[in-house]
């Protein structure tokens, strides 16, 4: 039975269903149980934005509040995963990775390879990403490319509630370390989501809009900006195809290439900073593997190469806008060509 729920609810539901199904699934993080039992708090915080709210009461003892100690508890999640548990650790903001990056980069990501294939590290690290909360430079970054660069990590970034639920269930069942990136500006977005459990396989992009003139590749929040741009472009009789990558590692190159071969034009939209980003990665891959199909140079629409600013007037300029995406399309698919 599908009903409209928010991405935040969908993530909570995925955790609930998997904790019910598998007793080795445990959840840990800062403030997830904080406040439980305190006057004025009937349940527990459920994390700083309440994503895990309600689970503490349902699964006593399986939600572990942590000290403000990311190296220790992210590492403990990784160690527990190597010892047969399936921990889901909430890193709150992915920006905090600097504090515990060794455990992710040098431990979790390396065990399987470095130990000759004999290790399984089924840990999920959930974290908020993205700008738009007026949270300034240390709470707003889109750090997906940093993790995508590291072999041994799987990197997921859903754009809607349906995908978030299915991808998180897949992540929990996956035997490898998964960095699960939740765009904080999408938490409230509601879409149709079935009540039952379902898993969306990794490495399968979603063609969320079909079109013959240009391929727009994106993921996370900017998929929605690409949609707005496509609506504008359609008024100019340019039909954009939108590919939502959904998972960045593994990545579905086949769908990207197939789409570009049909449209002959590529615009990649990435909220991350442009250097060594998902945008530059996709543009390079397409240039290398589908150069013959391209009628124009691939375009990248990204954040500027700056930290995220605080003041609303600047932050609103930071995340790629629908206008910027439409402008990039227009550069390579002018109206005359689309006719």
């Amino acid at each position, binding site marked *: 039975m599908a009903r409209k729920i928010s991405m935040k609810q969908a993530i909570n539901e995925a955790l609930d269903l998997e904790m019910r199904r598998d007793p080795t699934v445990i959840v840990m993080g800062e403030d997830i149980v904080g406040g439980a039992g305190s006057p004025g708090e009937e349940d527990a915080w459920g994390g700083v934005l309440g994503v895990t709210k309600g689970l503490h009461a349902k699964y006593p003892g399986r939600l572990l509040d942590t000290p403000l100690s990311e190296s220790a508890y992210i590492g403990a999640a990784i*160690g527990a995963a190597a010892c047969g548990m399936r921990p889901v650790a909430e890193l709150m903001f992915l920006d905090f990775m600097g504090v515990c990056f060794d455990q992710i980069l040098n431990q979790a990501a390396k065990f399987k390879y*470095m130990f000759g294939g004999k290790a399984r590290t089924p840990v999920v690290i959930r974290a908020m990403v993205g700008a738009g909360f007026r949270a300034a430079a240390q709470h707003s970054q889109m750090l997906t490319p940093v993790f995508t660069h590291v072999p041994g990590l799987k990197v997921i970034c859903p754009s809607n509630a349906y995908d978030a639920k299915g991808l998180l269930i897949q992540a929990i069942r996956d*035997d490898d370390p998964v960095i699960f990136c939740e765009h904080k500006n999408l938490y409230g977005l509601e879409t149709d989501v079935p009540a039952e459990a379902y898993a969306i396989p990794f490495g399968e992009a979603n063609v969320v809009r079909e079109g013959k003139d240009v391929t727009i590749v994106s993921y996370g929040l900017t998929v929605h900006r690409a949609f707005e741009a496509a609506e504008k472009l359609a008024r100019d009789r340019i039909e954009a195809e939108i590919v939502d990558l959904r998972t960045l590692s593994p990545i579905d190159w086949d769908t990207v290439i197939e789409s570009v071969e049909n449209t002959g034009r590529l615009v990649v939209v990435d909220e991350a900073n442009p250097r060594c980003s998902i945008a530059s990665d996709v543009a390079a891959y397409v240039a290398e593997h589908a150069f013959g199909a391209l009628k124009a140079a691939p375009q990248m629409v990204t954040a500027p190469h700056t930290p995220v600013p605080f003041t609303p007037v600047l932050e609103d300029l930071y995340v790629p806008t629908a206008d910027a995406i439409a402008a990039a399309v227009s550069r390579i698919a002018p109206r005359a060509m689309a006719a």
Partner: protein
Amino acid sequence: MPGNPFPLDKPDLLKAYRIMRTIREFEERLHVEFAKGDIPGFVHLYAGEEACATGIMMHLTDVDRIASTHRGHGHCIAKGVDVHEMMAEIYGKVTGACRGKGGSMHIADLAKGMMGANGILGAGAPLACGAGLAAKFRGDGGVGVTFFGDGASNQGMVLESMNLAAVWNLPVIFVVENNGYAESTSVEYATAVDSYVDRASGFGLPGVTVDGTDFFAVHEAAGEMIRRAREGGGPALLECRMIRFFGHFEGDAQTYKAAGENELNRRNRDCLKMFAARLREAGVVSAVELEMIDKDVESLIEDAVVSAKAAPLPTAHDLTTDVYVAY
């Protein structure tokens, strides 16, 4: 025939001797083989520190997990990792414990509860907390033991882990292997406290400092901590003061050590010699019994080196396997 004054029976005493002797022979032989130039990369030798790994590991079974250091060969051997697989791994062969992808600094055998040597100093501490957490959830009585040196003891993640283990009451033993040098830097310079036990108390952990060259001292202190942890009594810290016979890595000229320091240590503070002497003096084992073990161990290590050298190398195909479950 006098009685046995030791807390272990004779078979266990002989087992402990065999483990210490195996570590020593493994390391002394690697020292020789490394100089020949056939072994790639870095090798950090444990010789001189055998009593620590052995004294602790005598209390552990496969259900217990250890997180080791870059100087991990001794921990591996004491935890039961196959010596042939270890040697092949150090030579970068496909028959190695990690199929040649880990090398000396990353030998692991999860089936034996060995969660890996570790090239990142202090990184084993959070992992051991995870092992303790998993054991606690399973209720299998297992413990996690993490080893780190006097140098790595200054890493934030080690201190964070002590706090986490205390807050969650995890069955985790933190073992500081204090050999006096962080690479070339002396512990007096780099660590502001005289005793790591002071740090343990800062996190609410019981702690003990022992002479890490004395097998029985390590064995006794570790035994008490491990028993307590298994029974739900929580984490503890054990500082073992010990001797590193070789340099930080093979090829290290050890210019930071005093003249004659290594020779003096070898003569007066050799944990293996002292252990053997105590067993003989108490009349519990004979020199002949120990010599038989020595001979066994020598042929084991000789065989491990010969087979490692003869073993096949990985192929280009192996370069990209084992990144993902289904890569």
